[in-house]
């Protein structure tokens, strides 16, 4: 702690010799106390019947302004700017968290309604009205998404490796560009494409789990490529050069040096890609359809998936609608839980295998 008694230097261009070696600083508790003050002021406004949004906004603005002016007086403009940015980043984070938390609360609140044993062990075969379960849809979602991952992850990672490590010239530029384009394929178009593709071989009316996996792969591959590519690019070049200097062949360098370094990021990217497609409804609607009972063979006939199940339970509920709507929300909640589990696995994978480069 430097002393507060030191007078701040004048702002106008001090000569080098005038610059003091120490400068003023706010007391350690200044920021938290100001924050507390603003929050209290906000609460006061709230009690006076202002809308919560305005209270939060005014409290944040009040804190930012107070801290900025105070810090500017005592610490100078650089520190003041730093404090303002901290305030802005933090409040932006809180602001963004608001809708996200609201979505989560909505889903969890409504989704818990049907978290009973029947829901997880039964299918919808022969069920009207209350009861029924989504066992068939859970399996369908896992099978189809698993197949989609089996297709997309190798293709995506290999493509990223090509782009970063091998790709030169025109082909690489085309691939980079068209991978970007691919991220923009509307999901419903991916479904139509998969349907048209399989229709060529199997005739009209074909519905198979694998078609859904292909449609999802079309959506998933570009995400895997982009995420992996970014991560591979971030691997320091010195690592590669060190390996080359030891006469390690290029492919081994990539396998043993580059990929492990980027593994954590890649795992996150893959999880993200899975998360992106696992809740996809439109393409599965077209390519896989829906069925009420068990079908775990992705090469034969319709399968149920959680997203499609949830969609249909919502759009065409029976009379009364409540049991269907409960099932719809619970199925959606279940999807989130599945992704949560996947996420954990991805984190585990990256923690187990990634080299320890950072403390």
């Amino acid at each position, binding site marked *: 702690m430097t002393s507060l008694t030191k007078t701040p230097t004048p702002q106008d261009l001090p000569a080098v010799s005038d610059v003091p070696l120490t400068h003023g600083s706010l007391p350690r508790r200044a920021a938290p106390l100001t924050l507390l003050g603003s929050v209290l002021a906000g609460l006061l406004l709230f009690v006076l019947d202002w809308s919560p949004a305005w209270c939060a906004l005014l409290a944040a603005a009040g804190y930012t302004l107070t801290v900025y002016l105070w810090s500017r007086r005592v610490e100078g403009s650089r520190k003041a700017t730093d404090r303002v940015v901290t305030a802005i980043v933090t409040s932006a984070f809180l602001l963004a968290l608001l809708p996200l938390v609201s979505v989560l609360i909505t889903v969890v609140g409504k989704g818990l309604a049907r978290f009973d044993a029947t829901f997880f062990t039964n299918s919808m075969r022969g069920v*009207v009205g209350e009861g029924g379960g989504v066992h068939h849809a859970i399996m369908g979602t896992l099978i189809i998404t698993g197949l989609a991952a089996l297709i997309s992850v190798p293709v995506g990672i290999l493509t990223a490796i090509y782009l970063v490590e091998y790709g030169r010239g025109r082909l690489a530029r085309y691939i980079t560009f068209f991978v970007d384009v691919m991220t923009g394929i509307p999901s419903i178009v991916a479904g139509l494409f998969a349907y048209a593709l399989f229709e060529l071989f199997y005739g*009209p009316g074909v519905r198979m789990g694998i078609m859904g996996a292909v449609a999802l792969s079309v959506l998933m591959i570009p995400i895997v490529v982009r995420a992996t590519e970014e991560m591979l690019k971030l691997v320091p070049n010195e690592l590669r050069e060190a390996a080359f200097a030891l006469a390690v062949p290029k492919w081994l360098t990539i396998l043993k040096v580059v990929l492990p370094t980027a593994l954590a990021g890649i795992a996150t990217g893959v999880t993200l890609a899975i998360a992106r497609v696992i809740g996809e409804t439109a393409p599965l609607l077209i390519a896989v*359809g*829906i*069925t*009420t009972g068990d079908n775990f063979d992705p090469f034969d006939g319709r399968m149920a998936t959680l997203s499609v199940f949830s969609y249909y339970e919502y759009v065409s509920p029976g009379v009364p609608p409540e049991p269907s709507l409960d099932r719809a929300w619970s199925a959606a909640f279940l999807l989130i839980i599945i992704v949560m589990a996947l996420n954990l696995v991805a984190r585990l994978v990256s923690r187990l295998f990634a080299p320890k480069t950072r403390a």
Partner: protein
Amino acid sequence: MKRTIPGRLLALPAAIVLSFGLAACSSSNESDDENNNSNGNGGGETAETTSELSGTLNGAGASSQDAAQQAWMAGFVAANPDVTVNYDPVGSGGGREQFVAGATHFGGTDAYLADEELQGAIDRCAPGELIELPAYISPIAVIFNLEGVDELNLSASTIAQIFDQKITNWNDEAIAADNPDVELPDQAITPVNRSDESGTTENFVEYLAAAAPEDWTHEVSGDWPVAGGEAAQGTSGVVQAVTNGEGTIGYADASQAGDLGTVKVKVGEEFVGYSPDAASKVVEVSTPAEGRTQYDFAYDLSRDTTESGAYPIVLLSYQMACTSYEDAETAELVKAYLNYMISPEGQQAAADAAGSAPISDSLRAQIQPAVDAISAAE
């Protein structure tokens, strides 16, 4: 460091595959077919039926029928445990297209086949004949959310002007004239329509065009023709938008109207609220469409009927099928399923689960021969 990196990277998807591989046991209500019957409460008398039917039946079409199809499937499957019936509620257009292309065994559609599609369907069924059955009748309610008002009497002309945004306030004279006992507030009307193309819209607009031709001059289609109102997706969307807003009015499947206020519609000189009987009555007094084949029961509903006790705003949805299928097993399945569908039990199951209006006995007697005619092609 023996394992290669791709191996590790594949560990993630492999783990997923493994986990479902281990857990891929069947649903507990399906693991034992003998004890399966308790699940289907739409099934009725399943115990004595010893069914020999087996196989898979695929259908696709109108989403309006979905809830009813679910009930029919449940009832049918309960009686025939080895059968699987699938119905994709992809929409009427998709249903017609897939049926004509031979992609499905049966189809559901909110509008009967017309023009080139009709010819396509006839060709698809050759050498047999095309069947169209009006097996699903659902009243459409005009719903509103107005504080303190539960029921309103409105004529077709007033409804048309409200939805055309010509009448814009609830205390308008035209509304007040039909509702002398109701205290109407000075509040703006927000009409709510479907934003998606739908059979419900088409049937509602058809009613307005037929019953109030002077006030409703827009083209009849499944697409809502008036711009500038509030629009929402699907029946649930409209119901929710009407519920959330104030002074809102919309149209939706009567079964989903819930606690909202509903309109009694002027037919002849009286005001009729929706009810299953009133809805099936309008089908009875309607005339079959002209130029159709023997088993093609397409109806032009008489929306402007003055018949006492008929409720003219109904959605009539058809089942499409053929009288002959190449495969004997499929033919048996289609026949049995349609038979169940139009039977009194089937109609009651749909009424319970989807709020539809059971077809009358006389209509059943008319369409029964079509179902009986289904057989395998020689």
